[in-house]
């Protein structure tokens, strides 16, 4: 009986794949054109899958300013000294090999009526479908005393690359017994466990190099992702080093002075040596310029990641407001594959299968002490809705934690190959 029921569901799901009639192209150009803005976990994956699966039938252009992409995921492991910066850098050669036209430029404007994207270098790109995967920007005046001009004195290090290197340099230059402060962000933000993995990796570095140093975390939230796992790990590995001040203790009432290097929590001022300010976030700027945002984020339809504002404009990853998925590289990669399947179907008439999403986030607490949280999701009319999930538990054996960490390394190799193509 069970088998019959499953057979039925399976057949129904496969049968609900639809063959779309190919879209009629605006000005009669030969091949349908897709422009993807942003070459991270969402954009690079979408560009590669559309180019790879359409086998030349779709003209795919990826607009990404940097020539080497440094992942934000695993950047905390660089802070902890476990990974090198080179381990986190990826070129776009594999995308070009897959048939993607990679343009290293900034997208500065989108004209949704004319269906064009303007680049800082002066070029204009026409599109039939536009995919935006711009990641995050920071909300103005989110932390009193901090703006982007202060990002050298008080780095956010929440975009991979130079900011991460700056924070690492400041961590290494801390005086003996000094204070590392973090201002954690309010929900929703990129990588929910990220700030707390960072605290762990900073503590890991300090324990070996500056063991009398202290870490203060000012947090506007009363609780955070994997909280019990992190707090157990902090007590086990870094006892007495980390002072987490949550919302209930004034962690949300914060101001900073980047010139004087002070942090004020609930009107109590502290002199700090490093101050990692991670402000409230919003969709990357081009999503706002394109006019597909509502408030800080871009609302999308769960079935294909098209925006509520424009059926020919899609938003992936952190910038999207989709429902239950966390903002993570894994989630963006998952959404990109659903989007790529739908976009290709709309442009070429290829089969469109039902949307399915998944996410897993690994965090490292100390050497070989890895934890993870994950869930599966489906598309409903309202949102991307959670189906099922799991989380590591406190008190797991060292073997389980090591296996989890090794798995995260395998995932890093896997997702970066999925984004950029296999390393040659």
């Amino acid at each position: 009986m069970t088998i019959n029921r499953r057979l039925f569901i399976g057949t129904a799901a496969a049968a609900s794949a639809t063959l779309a009639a190919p879209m009629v192209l605006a000005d009669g150009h030969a091949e349908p054109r897709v422009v993807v803005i942003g070459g991270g976990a969402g954009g690079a994956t979408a560009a590669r899958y559309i180019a790879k699966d359409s086998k030349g039938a779709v003209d795919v252009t990826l607009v990404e300013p940097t020539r080497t992409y440094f992942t934000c995921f695993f950047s905390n492991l660089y802070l902890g000294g476990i990974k090198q910066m080179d381990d986190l850098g990826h070129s776009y050669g594999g995308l070009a090999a897959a048939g993607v036209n990679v343009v290293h430029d900034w997208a500065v404007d989108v004209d949704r009526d004319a269906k064009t994207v303007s680049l800082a270098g002066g070029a204009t790109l026409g599109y039939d479908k536009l995919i935006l995967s711009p990641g995050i920007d920071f909300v103005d005046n989110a932390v009193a005393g901090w703006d982007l001009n202060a990002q050298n004195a008080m780095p956010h290090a929440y975009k991979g690359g130079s900011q991460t290197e700056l924070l690492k340099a400041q961590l290494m230059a801390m005086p003996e017994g000094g204070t590392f402060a973090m201002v954690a962000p309010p929900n929703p933000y990129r990588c929910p466990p990220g700030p707390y993995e960072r605290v762990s990796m900073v503590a890991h570095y300090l324990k070996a190099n500056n063991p009398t140093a202290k870490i203060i975390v000012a947090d506007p939230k009363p609780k955070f992702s994997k909280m019990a796992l992190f707090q157990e790990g902090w007590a086990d590995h870094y006892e007495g080093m980390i002072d987490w001040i949550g919302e209930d203790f004034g962690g949300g009432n914060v101001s900073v002075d980047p010139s004087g290097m002070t942090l004020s929590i609930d009107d109590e001022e502290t002199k700090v040596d490093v101050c990692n300010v991670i402000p409230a976030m919003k969709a990357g700027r081009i999503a706002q310029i394109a006019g597909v945002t509502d408030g800080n984020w871009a609302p999308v339809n769960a079935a294909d990641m098209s925006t509520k504002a424009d059926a020919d404009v899609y938003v992936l990853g952190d910038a999207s407001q989709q429902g239950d998925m966390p903002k993570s590289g894994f989630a963006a990669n998952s959404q990109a594959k659903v989007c790529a399947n739908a976009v290709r179907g709309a442009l070429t008439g290829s089969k469109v299968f039902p949307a399915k999403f998944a996410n897993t986030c690994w965090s490292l607490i100390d050497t070989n002490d890895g934890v993870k949280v994950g869930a599966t999701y489906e598309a409903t009319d309202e949102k991307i809705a959670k189906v099922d999930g799991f989380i590591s538990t406190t008190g797991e054996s060292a073997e389980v934690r090591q296996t989890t960490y090794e798995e995260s390394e395998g995932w890093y190799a896997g997702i970066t190959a999925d984004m950029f193509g296999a390393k040659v």
Partner: protein
Amino acid sequence: MKSIKWFSLSVAVSVFVTGAAAEVVGDPERGQQVYKKCASCHMVGPEARNRVGPVLNNILSARAAGVPEFKYSEAIKEAAQDGLHWTAETLDAFLQDPKQMVPRTKMSFRGLKSEEDRIDVIAYLASFSGGAMAAQVDEGFVISADILAIEGDVEYGEYLSSECTTCHQESGSDDGIPAIVGWETDDFVTAMHAYKQKNREHPVMQMVTSRLSNEEIAALAAYFKSLEN
């Protein structure tokens, strides 16, 4: 006769399939005794590190010459570049006579002449290979012949596979998450159902498989098998 055919998965999971002829598989406990011949040069297990020879964790389905920081011979590196992966079959051939399979390999070992020894030591090594490979299912775990007989839709499998390739590499590389390319479809289907029925441990795999139908599992098996070449 012990059979090599079923090896890649069945050594690890001792699968018994109803309707299929009983297969005799490797005995990892006996393999541990055989492994003593290897242990003067190779380590395996959680504390293993490279010695005269590389660590043998995750050896099954790994690309040859793939252990970081080990200085391999040019010969084995060239074989790896030509696509040599360690499967039960290739390991069996290598262990029978290393210098015949890879001339000028640094491995100074005359080989295991006994097929039984080779099968058992590979079964032992399989128990240290990857999350999936090392996972055990109960001996009584059964997949019906009906489920194994479902013909997978490769195109649907290709679409579904994008959920797998966030972690499992399409190229068949293994950097900490097992390779799943080129598996026999029966092995693949059995492993997926073992996760789905919580007979095999791994929270991510149990979660992912819990919502895969029998047809979807068959489609994935057919697709990943098709990537073999």
